[in-house]
């Protein structure tokens, strides 16, 4: 297949081949004020057993990407272009019935524990068993509960709490339960949407560790969505930085962290405090995100970019290929 070089960066992944390929995805929301282009031409691919971190501030479109993958957009959401190839099949072309079989079974989702992601009037074990029984119809309830028990052990949850209700769990336990539920059908891909936000730091760290271990053990691909780039660096092989609906930098974790090129990425890294290393001033990023209903003509970051030039405002920049795995959406980011 011939494809413009800038949109198809990563060739064969290190293990097992390509699991997911997103190509020119365009998603938006119909609002009273117009069509809001939340995701405007995003492309990346993910290999089997690999993890990708999607980072960006609120409203940059990362959650929308996650939702679009499962076709879980709200009623006013609309996919306007692109393809989502999951094991070679375009998810955007599938009917609702087919999607229902794919959901959770092959692609699962981990939500924030702080959300009301668990049904308050249903026991935790029932909710997890429900996921199992929906996709493995031949199993009996007892077998499903046995599996739930196994999952509990896997995520370090006390088995005697299986019959409890969600409100009886602490924040960390709820998050683990949500993770257990996501693993219930042994999916190939898990999308984790801010899974550690609103947890205290220690628990956060534990969960990230456990997530990483699980991922390596079970060989599941993960897309980790977060606004916190430091978390993502811990867990993910590749990192994609998003801004205002566009992917602005993409590379392996070493490349993005060690050699951030896009000014937004640099600003993101500079605005996070570190315990080690030299003392720096925290640098807030001035300005506001551009309107997504009438996006600017040129680079979307130019209003806040310290190096913005005239060309930046007039034309959307091309992808700059820095290495076979590292690319950045900018003309002036040579080094």
């Amino acid at each position, binding site marked *: 297949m011939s494809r413009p070089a800038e949109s198809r960066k990563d060739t064969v992944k290190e293990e097992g081949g390509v699991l997911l390929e997103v190509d020119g995805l365009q998603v938006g929301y119909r609002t009273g004020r117009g069509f809001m282009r939340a995701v405007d031409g995003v492309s990346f691919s993910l290999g089997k057993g690999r993890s990708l971190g999607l980072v960006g501030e609120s409203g940059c479109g990362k959650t929308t990407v996650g939702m679009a993958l499962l076709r879980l957009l709200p009623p006013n959401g609309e996919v306007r272009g692109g393809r989502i190839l999951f094991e070679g099949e375009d998810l955007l072309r599938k009917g609702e019935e087919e*999607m229902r*079989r794919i959901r959770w079974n092959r692609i699962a989702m981990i939500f924030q524990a702080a959300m*009301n992601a668990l049904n308050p009037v249903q026991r935790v074990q029932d909710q997890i068993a429900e996921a199992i029984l929906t996709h493995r119809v031949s199993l009996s309830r007892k077998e499903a509960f046995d599996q739930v028990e196994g999952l509990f052990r896997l995520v370090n949850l006390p088995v005697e709490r299986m019959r409890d209700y969600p*409100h009886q769990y602490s924040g960390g336990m709820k998050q683990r339960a949500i993770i257990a539920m996501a693993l219930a059908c042994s999916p190939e891909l898990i999308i984790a949407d801010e899974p550690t936000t609103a947890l205290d730091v220690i628990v956060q760290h534990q969960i990230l560790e456990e997530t990483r271990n699980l991922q390596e053990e079970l060989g599941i691909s993960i897309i980790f969505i977060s606004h916190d780039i430091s978390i993502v660096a811990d867990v993910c092989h590749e990192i994609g930085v998003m801004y205002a609906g566009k992917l602005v930098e993409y590379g392996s974790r070493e490349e993005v962290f060690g050699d951030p090129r896009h000014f937004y990425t640099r600003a993101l890294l500079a605005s996070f405090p570190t315990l080690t290393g030299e003392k720096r001033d925290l640098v807030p990023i001035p300005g506001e995100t551009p309107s997504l209903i009438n996006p600017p003509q040129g680079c979307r970051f130019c209003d806040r970019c310290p190096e913005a030039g005239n060309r930046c405002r007039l034309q959307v920049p091309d992808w700059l290929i820095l290495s076979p795995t590292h690319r950045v959406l900018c003309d002036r980011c040579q080094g």
Partner: protein
Amino acid sequence: MDLWKFIVRRLIQVVVIFFVILTALFLLFRLAPGDPVERMVDPTMTPEDAQRLVKVLGLHEPLHTQYGVYLKNFVQGRFGTSFHYGQPVEDIIWEKLPNTILLFTTAIILSALTGIALGKIASWRKGSRVDTWLTIGSLATHTVFLPWLALILIWIFAYRLGWFPITGMISEEVWLDPDAGIWVKTLDVAHHMVLPLGTLFLIHFGSTLLVMRSSMLETLKEDYILTARAKGLTEKAIRNRHAAKNAALPVVTGVGLSLAFSINGGALTETVFTWPGIGRELVFAVSQSDYPLAQAAFLLIALVVLVSNVIVDVLYAYLDPRIRY
């Protein structure tokens, strides 16, 4: 389990509240203009009987002694003698209580279940014609004046069409017939119950429907619905298993809050349809100045409302694990 503790706690509250009502009624009776003796003693009684009654009820004693006597009598179930019937009040009200409970409970349960079921459907098809008609219908029936609705129903279905009897709970012929079996009798009661039940049902199902509908719409925005959808459940499963159970909770609360209002309606319905229940006895007793009967009927109705409240609260606690655990 905590549920029992909860029930016990609520029952104690009921006793306390009932006590307060009892006392309030006592004070009201003594404070009203006129002679308390006259009120409790049937004018047609012989002087000796009257004297005996006065002694039993302690009507000439100082206030606090009267109060003690009053409470003692209440606990022993003695409310005096009805002027109109000439019988002890207790006999009358215990006879009428089941009729009220039959009508009232059936109406509440039926209208709640229907409201929940239809409200669910209305929320599904929000904006469709079904929804619009259901909403309009609920609004219309909910705001109709109950006695008037009763009259209209009687006029159309009993008078004009002759499908149902105009008044009463039973047909004498059926019940006096020695050969009539239990089925025939039950059917007869049911036949008489249709219109009063229909009246109460129409008035009440609308509000449960509207509450359920808006509750469903709110619930469907919750995060766990998104989870359910992500799990690959069918829309039907999501609606019934996840949304409806949560959405029904405010409906239960609503039913509980409106119980006092409902019993007003129950009394009105009984009066218009001459259904021999306590509500009607109260109205009748008041109109006849039959104070002993009126007082007892009122207390019993208050008790019914209190106990119903407890039942609804317990039901809610059963349905919502966040309360129990």
